[in-house]
């Protein structure tokens, strides 16, 4: 799991006791993980930042209810996913995602519009696309998937969670996680191929 370092048990206990310095330490250690999950789930850095802050406020408010300090990371990820689901629903009601269709040209971080015809996975991608562009493509591809598929890919392939952790977080048996994850990957491949046609 390529995430933030595991938070010490003492820090969590201090935070539970109301120590704000311990809370700050938790924020500093976990903000990258929370922000990246949010960004991959929502597809917008501003929304992700706002949502991550909301997540930490929820953590501060409810950490006293955390029973097992050892499961803090899973607990934090769970809170983040819940916030993301709620935020996506909210944004969907506001037609936030409507302008985004599979036919849209891909916009890079630099603001350049990349013609979708240029994308061809069969060509040598290393020569055609910069690393940044690949990341942008993946980001856009993720947004085209179903929510549960996106969650699976984010947790397993981006956050590096084990099948067991993913299963715990999503409340799925390990076998279901594997099959669903494969389906999600195949769909993503198809989405990326769709950008080329």
């Amino acid at each position, binding site marked *: 799991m390529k995430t933030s370092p595991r938070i010490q048990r003492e820090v969590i206990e201090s935070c539970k006791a109301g120590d704000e310095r311990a809370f700050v330490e938790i924020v500093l250690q976990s*903000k990258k993980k929370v922000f990246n999950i949010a960004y991959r789930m929502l597809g917008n*850095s501003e929304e992700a930042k706002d949502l991550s802050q909301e997540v930490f406020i929820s953590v501060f408010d409810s950490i006293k209810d955390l029973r097992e300090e050892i499961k803090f990371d899973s607990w934090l990820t769970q809170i983040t996913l819940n916030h993301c689901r709620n935020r996506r629903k909210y944004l969907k009601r506001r037609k936030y995602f409507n302008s985004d269709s599979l036919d849209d040209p891909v916009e890079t971080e630099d603001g350049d519009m990349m013609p979708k015809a240029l994308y061809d996975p069969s060509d040598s991608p290393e020569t055609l696309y910069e*690393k940044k562009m*690949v990341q942008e493509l993946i980001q856009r591809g993720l947004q085209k998937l179903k929510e549960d598929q996106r969650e699976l890919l984010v947790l397993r392939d981006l956050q590096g969670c084990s099948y067991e952790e993913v299963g715990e977080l999503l409340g799925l048996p390990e076998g279901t996680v*594997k099959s669903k994850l494969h389906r999600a990957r195949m769909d993503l491949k198809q989405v990326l191929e769709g950008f080329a046609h």
Partner: protein
Amino acid sequence: MECEKVRDRFSSLWEKELTPSEEKGIKDHLSSCRECQREFERFEKTMRWLRSVEELEVPDEFVSGLYKKMEKRKRMASAERSRKRWLSFPLPLKLPVQAVVMVAIVFLVLYLTKMMPMGVYRPKEAKQTSSPHSLEKRPEGILVQKEVERERGPSKIAPGVPRPKDVDRAETSAARKENLEADAPQIKGEAKKAEEPAPKTEVKGYRTLDSREEARGRALSREPEKFEKELLAKKKSVVAAKPSQEIVLRISDRDKAISQLRELVKQFKGEIVTTGENGLLASVPAGSFSEFRKELVDVSSGDADKGAARKQTAEGLGSLQEGKKEAIEGKGREPARLVADEGSRVVVRILLVQE
């Protein structure tokens, strides 16, 4: 092995989760099926891209923004708590409090609306009372105003006809203002007035109203002449009661002496107040009194009485000033006004003794 089954195992093959026999079977199929091989290559590329995605850095202002949000939440939470606390109050406790507050608001509004008109006049009064002399003079002005109103009242309004309040109020306030303005300088400038000559036509020795007010009174009154007469009679009675000087003249011809005295008084810008059998009462300006007294001696027929002209009363011109102050400070308001008025004019009783 069918293509579909092989493609379902792509993830397991890529994750190396297959048993060696399973892996061998799939790889054999891929080498024989060109389509499945191309599919696996695409899948592999997608997975490589997916795993190559790097984590983004958190924006710099993340933590500060978080603190701001937390502060805002705290404020909102405290406001919400206080609101809920009030809502959670039991109704038997909440209702009386609301009722009391409502009644208090109603009374406050009533009080304010009632006080509003008075507030218009107060600043003027406050302005007047800022002078120490005006404190003394204001009630006098009110008394005079009442007196004037009492005199005017019957002539102005027919019996049974209600007087319009607005007019009354306007007049009262205007008259009060005039009085206050007129009386204040009267006291301040007493010493000065004693030296100055008095205006020509009117008797001012014991005036209670100044000329402006009198003019106003005349204008407002429907019977100005009657009012003036009454006022004059009143003044004369007051003057007659308290002459400040008494001079005895010996004369041979009474009528001639009186006509001479009239001319003399006129010459000194004075005025004959009353004419009796034994003499007359005149009012002359204080500044020219000494000269007037000298001229009176010439009117007298005998030399003997040239020295007989003497002061009868204790109030001399000098003592008048002191008396004024005492009257202002300690005595009633009416005497104070009378003595103050004596300063500008001297009332002389001239007794005519037939030789």
